[in-house]
Every structure is written in C-alpha cells, then in structure tokens.
C-alpha cells in the first residue's frame, strides 16, 4: 500500500512526460512539413518572363512572400498547438530566396546550384505537461527547409 502510494505519482509523471514528448515530436513533424510545403510552393512559382527570355528556370520575384504566406497557412492548421499565432511565427521566420544559381547561403553556409528557397524558423509549441512538471510550458522548435527545382 505504501509502495503504491509512493510509486503511483512517479509512474503518472513518467507517463505524462512520455505522452508530452510524443506529442511534441508530432507537432515538430507538422511544423517541419509546413515549412517544406511552403518552400515547395515558392519554388514552383517561376518567373515566366525570364523563362521565355533564356529558357531557364528562375524564381519569381515574390518567392519570399509566397513562401511566408504558405508557411503561415500551413501553421494555421496547427494553431492550437503553437505557442504564438501562426502569422507571427511566419513573419518572424528567416526566409530567403536565391533566384539565380549558384548562390551561397550566409546563414547555413550552403552552396546552391539551382534557384533555391530557404526557410529557417523558430516555432514555439505548447507543452503544458512540461510546464506542470516545472519545465518550460512552451518549447521552441527550430525548422530548416530548403527547396530547389531538380
């Protein structure tokens, strides 16, 4: 009886922590998918004038705006899990477009051989169980997504 009273809270805390950790991984996957989809959509938007002129693919001039818009839209589907508004997260994201290749990314140090869109964002995610357990109630997930036509 005493052993049960002692171990039961410990088991419940462990179980709650495991569930929160699993939920966090699911949310992280959704946030990463949101960034990937936004980058793909931005790359899929090409500059038709440049294509007619040179026959080569080149990113549209508004590729950054397109990527940010779609990143916010995708995050909005998981708004209840986010620690802040999806629009704010997308607005704060570091989104860069490299219309012509080759290009060098100063943030990541990567070299891009094709027109590329890169999204780097810090997405706050609610972790209430962690907060109840004396951890932070909001956990920040870093996402990085890079897309180019291949």
């Amino acid at each position, binding site marked *: 009886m005493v052993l049960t009273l002692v171990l039961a809270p410990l088991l419940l805390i462990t179980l709650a922590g495991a569930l929160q950790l699993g939920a966090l991984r699911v949310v992280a996957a959704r946030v990463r998918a949101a960034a990937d989809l936004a980058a793909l959509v931005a790359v899929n938007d090409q500059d038709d004038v440049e*294509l007619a002129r*040179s026959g080569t*693919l080149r990113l549209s001039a508004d590729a950054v705006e397109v990527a940010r818009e779609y990143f916010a839209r995708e995050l909005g589907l998981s708004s209840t899990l986010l620690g802040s508004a999806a629009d704010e997260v997308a607005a704060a994201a570091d989104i860069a477009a490299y219309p012509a290749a080759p290009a060098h990314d100063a943030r990541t140090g990567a070299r891009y051989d094709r027109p*590329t869109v890169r999204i780097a964002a810090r997405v706050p995610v609610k972790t209430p169980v962690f907060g109840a357990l004396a951890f932070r109630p909001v956990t920040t997930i870093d996402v990085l997504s890079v897309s180019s036509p*291949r």
Partner: protein
Amino acid sequence: MKRRAAASVFAVLLLCSSPALAWDPSREDGGDARPEVEREPDPAPFIAPPPGIYYVTDTYVADVVTSTGALTTYSTTTVHESTGSYARVLDTVGTGASSAFDGSAFNGRRTLGDGRSVAGTYYENYVLDAGGFVPVSIVFFQDDAEVARLLSGTPISGVNTPAPSIPATASATPRPFGTTCCATQRPVVPIPSPTLAPIRPRISLVPLGAPLATLEVLRGRAVSLYPRAFVGDREVPVRAWTVIAGDAGEALVTAGSGVVPFRTSWRHLAPPGAAFDVVFRIEVDTPETGHRTVAAAIGVVVRSPALER
C-alpha cells in the same frame, strides 16, 4: 418358363432388327469408289515456259523521244495487250555501253546528242508452236534521258538569257554588240544557279520571344512552343509544323499551322543529366523561300521542386 420367355423376346428383337446405315468418315477402303470418269484429252496442253521466259502482256508499240525544255527523254510506248507471244530479257545496257545485241534489234538503238547510245533493255520474243518456244525477233526498249547542252546555241524555252552587259569604259564609247570576231563562236550562256536563302529554324516560348535551344520546365507545367523560321535577320511565316521526333509530353496535337503553338506539358522527368529532345519539321512556303521544310530541335529539361537536406 423364364427361359422360354427370354428366348421369345430375343427372337422378336432379332426379327425386328435392320442394318444401320452410317457414314464412316475415316473409311478408306475402295469398296464404294466411284467409277472412273473418262476425261477428254486437253486440246491445248499447258507447256511451262523455260526459266527466264515469260508471257508477254505489254506489247511494244514505238520508240518515243520527247523534249521538255532542256530535258530530252527517250522512252518506249507499249500497249497492254497480249499477242500470245513470250519474251525474255537479253541484256540491260547503260548509257553509252555497248552490247552484243547492238544491231540485232528490229527497232534499232538510238544515240544521244553526244553520240552515245541510249540506255535500255534488249528483249527476245518467242512464239510457241508444236516444236516449243521459237525465237522470232529482238526488240530494244529504250529508257534514257539527257539535258540538252547549252552550247548548241539554240534558244531554250524556260531559260532566261540575260542580256550581255556593256562594260563601262573611260571613253564611254559604246562597243558594238556581237563583234564579228566572235560571231562564229557559240555564246556562253550563264545560267543563274537557283541558290535559295538558308532558312534558320527557331523555337521560342512566345511569338516574338528569344529563340531557345534548351528549355527548363517544371513537371506538369503547360508550355507553348512557337516554331519559327528566319531568312537572314527577317522572320518568315511558318506554314505548318509537325513534331517528328522526341518526347512530345502530354500534347494533344503534334502538328499545326504556323499561327498556333505547340502546347504540351511533361509529367515525367528525364533520366538524370538527360533531356527530352523534341524535333519539329517546320514548313515554309513564301515567294522568297519557296516551299521548303526545315528541322528544328529543342532540348527540354523537366524539373520538379524538391527538398534539399
């Protein structure tokens, strides 16, 4: 009692029986063979001709020499009828070549303007009598042509002879045309060679866009390709175009007039490092170019947005 009844039934069945008449398809005995029908002798028995001899269905009529402009054609007219004769090929000779049968043909062998014998084929005719195939004659079927030599001095219809130009001299004294010193010489008539201006085919994404040799397109993205043609720096209208080779993608039509583009899209990617080479046949028909066709090719690289890791 039972034995009597059984014997009675058997006797009744035996009396009522009759022979079965059935046809046996596999029966091969000659018991029912029909009597041999007496055949009448063939009034005209077929005699197979020897190898090389065939039955004549087109009969020689005459030698024909026709002239069209500078071209003189030597041919032979025939009539599609059979005289019951046979023939075989003796010799086929080319222009100027001699044959062992020269002089033996009843219609002779003509010569070209330069004295060479015309080309053609010698045939030997046969008739079939009681003794077999008997040769009766040799005929020469001429088949040749020549372009009249322009040194003959005779005017040739269809050829524009430019008037000789008078060279400008310092004294401005007009020279007499056709001096006596050259009257006996045959005038050399320069013939302008029919050189046609080269047509440069081009392909662009817009009607007045830059010509493209390669094109990058996104997978599934609809594009319009405009086959165009240039003579020098000037664009000439395209009468029609046709995709004659390469992967045309998801195009609904692969041919069209010059005013419509080639619309297509590609839903699959080429192998890494490769491209789809699309070849057009562009047809041009203008007074400047005449009716000509040229080929134009464009390499299409299909790409798809992908994630980098």
